[in-house]
């Protein structure tokens, strides 16, 4: 029996099979369908439910367009544009502030995270900014050829990573800020960061967070006012995370209700649209940030495991794409996307079951929200772009 070489096999298959990564497409299709089903259940008891479901499906459609564009686009052309892309991401992140400054729009819930004109919300620019930052960091890290050893190199990469992080804190949106940190750390690890530097960075991170809290407490003592360094709602969420009984009326209440929703789903759930926690308004933001609570309540442990299984398939497939990339730049892009998703999955599901503090981070492919969906679809397009151009 003749052994078929890798090259020969590819040669023998039509281009379409070489360009398409079937497991990736399959997991994304299943995830978006699954997400749409759960979103439709979550919005079913809302007065504007039908139009919201349409907007969700529109977001998926728009995301497919962006995916196609990103897929068709040769990612390698971006490698030399690190500087301008950096500027673009910075501009995206601060754009709501600029519009706010120009009196075109106002802060929403005390935060400038939406790009809006008047009362019309367009999209959250921090979403596409994540992808731009991933490309920028990939370009920067790729230059070291897989070995990040010198302090200056580490500092330089951290410098690039720090720009969007600091800017996002001015919105302020601490949750998304953590996503940026996760992306940077994940990409540096894939990009050859030595473990000792990882430890140093981790230590620095702990010190930074500790410093923020110290600054907040000093500011509180001096001015007698919260919100000086860390936004009050953010501080409350953290306080509640460490002491759930501290406030059962607000921040803690949400987590408590989410846990009740998920736990009460038991093994097989209460059935779609039959969740009482969601449909009777005990769950806050049940179609966006707390979509997993709806899933857990209505589809139970079985439904949750199916979702985790789909995520596992997505992430493993993505890692295999990263490994198959012809260049480090492509591999790093994929690794960045992978880290982003993994962190968001951990953070989102973790907060709904009370194992991490509450931040306003949605669940990839599941949560309602067009800008988030489009961003994730674009990321899929970038993964396919890397996959298609692997030879």
């Amino acid at each position: 029996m003749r052994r078929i070489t890798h090259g020969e096999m590819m040669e023998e298959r039509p281009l379409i099979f070489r360009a398409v990564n079937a497991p990736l497409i399959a997991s994304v299709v299943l995830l978006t369908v699954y997400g749409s089903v759960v979103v439709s259940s979550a919005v079913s008891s809302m007065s504007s439910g039908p139009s919201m479901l349409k907007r969700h499906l529109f977001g998926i459609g728009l995301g497919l367009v962006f995916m196609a564009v990103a897929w068709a686009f040769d990612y390698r052309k971006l490698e030399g544009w690190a500087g301008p892309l950096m500027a673009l991401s910075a501009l995206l992140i601060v754009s709501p502030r600029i519009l706010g400054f120009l009196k075109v729009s106002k802060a929403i819930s005390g935060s400038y995270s939406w790009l809006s004109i008047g009362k019309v919300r367009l999209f959250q620019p921090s979403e596409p900014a994540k992808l731009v930052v991933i490309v920028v960091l990939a370009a920067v890290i790729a230059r070291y050829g897989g070995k990040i050893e010198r302090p200056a190199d580490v500092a330089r990469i951290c410098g690039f990573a720090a720009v969007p992080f600091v800017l996002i804190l001015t919105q302020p949106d601490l949750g998304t800020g953590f996503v940026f940190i996760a992306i940077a750390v994940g990409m540096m690890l894939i990009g050859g960061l030595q473990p000792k530097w990882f430890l140093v960075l981790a230590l620095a991170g702990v010190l930074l967070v500790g410093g923020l809290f110290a600054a907040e407490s000093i500011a509180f003592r001096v001015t007698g006012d919260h919100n000086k360094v860390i936004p009050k709602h953010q501080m409350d969420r953290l306080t509640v995370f460490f002491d759930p009984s501290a406030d059962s009326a607000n921040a803690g209440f949400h987590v408590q209700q989410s846990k009740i929703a998920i736990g009460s789903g038991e093994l097989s759930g209460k059935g779609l649209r039959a969740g009482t926690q969601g449909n009777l308004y005990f769950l806050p933001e049940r179609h966006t940030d707390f979509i997993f609570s709806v899933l857990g309540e209505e589809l139970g442990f079985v439904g949750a495991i199916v979702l985790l299984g789909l995520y596992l398939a997505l992430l493993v497939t993505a890692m295999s794409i990263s490994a198959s990339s012809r260049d480090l730049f492509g591999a790093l892009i994929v690794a960045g996307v992978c880290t982003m998703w993994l962190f968001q999955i951990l953070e989102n599901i973790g907060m709904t079951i009370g194992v991490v503090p509450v931040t306003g981070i949605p669940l990839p492919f599941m949560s309602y929200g067009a800008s988030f969906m489009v961003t994730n679809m674009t990321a899929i397009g970038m993964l396919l772009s890397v996959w298609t151009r692997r030879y």
Partner: protein
Amino acid sequence: MFGALIAAVLAILAARLWVMQVAEGSAYALQAKQNRVREVTLEAPRGQIFDRNGEPLVVNRAVLVVMAEPGLAYNEKAGESAEEQAKGQVKQNLSTLLGVPVSEIEEKLASKKENALAPRVIATDVSLDKIAYLAEHASEFEGIEVRSRAVRQYPQGRLAAHVLGYAGEISDSQLSGADYAGYDPTDIVGKTGAELSFENVLHGDRGARILEVTAGGRPRRMISETQPNAGKDIVLTIDSEIQKVAEEALVDALADAHRNNSVKAKSGAAVAVDVTNGEVVALASCPTFDPALFVGGISQETWAEITDKSSEYPLSNRAIAGLYPPASTFKAITGLAGLDSGLTSAVSSYYCPGRWIGMGEQWGKWCWLHSGHKSMSFRGGVEESCDAVFYEIGYAFYKNDREGIQRFAREFGYGSRLGIDLPGERAGRMPDAKWKKEFNEDYPEYQRWLPGDTVNLAIGQGDTLVTPLQVAMSYAAIANGGTLYKPHVLKEVLSSDGNPVVTVEPTVIAEPDVSDEDLRTMRTALKQVVRTGTGKSAFRGFNVSVAGKTGTAEVAGKDDFAWFVGYAPADSPKYCVAVVIEQGGSGGSVAAPAARQILAALLGEKIEHVNATDNSR
């Protein structure tokens, strides 16, 4: 390495989900259920009370109650949040509308009596214009609701207040008792009188509506409903017409007493019973009270007023709980005992010298008529209420059958509760040697039963204490030929369609062993009392023949208590009436006219108040 990280993250989440959804799932499911399910109590109306002719005595009146969600209570933790301010505004609006201070509203919201999630009553019996304002400005009163609630109403005012009693919110001690298992802390229960006696019949079973509510507490759908079971209506043996006359007669009697210079007379009691079955037709106690004072809770001030020493205790039901020396009314019992034991007879003759010295010169005792009745027959002794005759009979008992009178009296119901279906009945006292020894435990020199004790007992003085009900029932037994019925006020319990589900049958307590002949002798003597004796003045011109006995009791440190007990028609007795006026003076002139009024009402005779004169005892 990255693959391991992915696996680890997903595995941690999966493990946590397993714990929450599978291992601890049922606990969370229970919490979810408690979240969404609310139980709304459906009040069960309390049974109504009617008199024997169907006249309403106690009914229910629907009043509008303003209630507030407990969530409106001030939450210290929430501080100055917008939500807290909105709640404050609602409470302010409510306070302005109802005229209830905000502090009081907060107090009621914080009440621990209700179920934690049940709305709290803020105001009862709210006027319609205020309710209309609430309805029109619903948006300013988020969390406020109006409900209808039934309260007690007394169409006949104070009539029969002691029989009816009053109802009020269940007390903590009642709630913890076995009799009130299944009651709610906000339930209205009977506190005294028939309201208390027939609590288990009058009290309905609350219904419940299980609702599914949203996080905001708004009902979404009904899961299940249990209809409330209304309490059953009851019919009493009381006749409100007779009751009214009885209450008026007591007031008239007090006026008579005052006219006769018995200025300390302030209270009294009257009982009218059907001698053929023990039904209590009227039961009056004076002074009385207004049961409506207790609707919605009595004020501290009013309570203090009606329980103060100077108030003459209007809440006390003297007809069944007042203890008095029976005085000469007891001579019928002594006489019957004497006839029964052969110590006297219808033809026995006596001599009343005024001061009786049967026990020796140094132990001489006065008859009420100090000049003496001279020659007296047994019947004359009853008719004129001659003490000397009964001293003789008493002394004969002391010598021959030392506790014969007591034994006989007990058979007629004295010294123990008759068991009327009203709370608070007292047993009284039928003294004997054993009692005296125990009573004077610390005074050895007074422990011995003396001949004078029996002699005093024979004329209804000494240590004997009776209730007006006991006197009425014992005479009813004499009247009906020797059957002591158990007195009762409950006639029927009605079902929801108005038909009786329970009809109280006469209960015989005892049939004292006394011969018809002896009874006849006594009845003839009692008839004579009213015809020519001490009751003559009060019953002059009365068309129906009445048999009875006057009494004037001596009470240490107080003016004489006036008694009359009688039954009619004398030859085929139907009703028996007993009247006592505390410190009212002579029974023949004060109590007998009152009894006449009541008997007139019972027999359909002209009800008139007569001024009687009689100075006997």
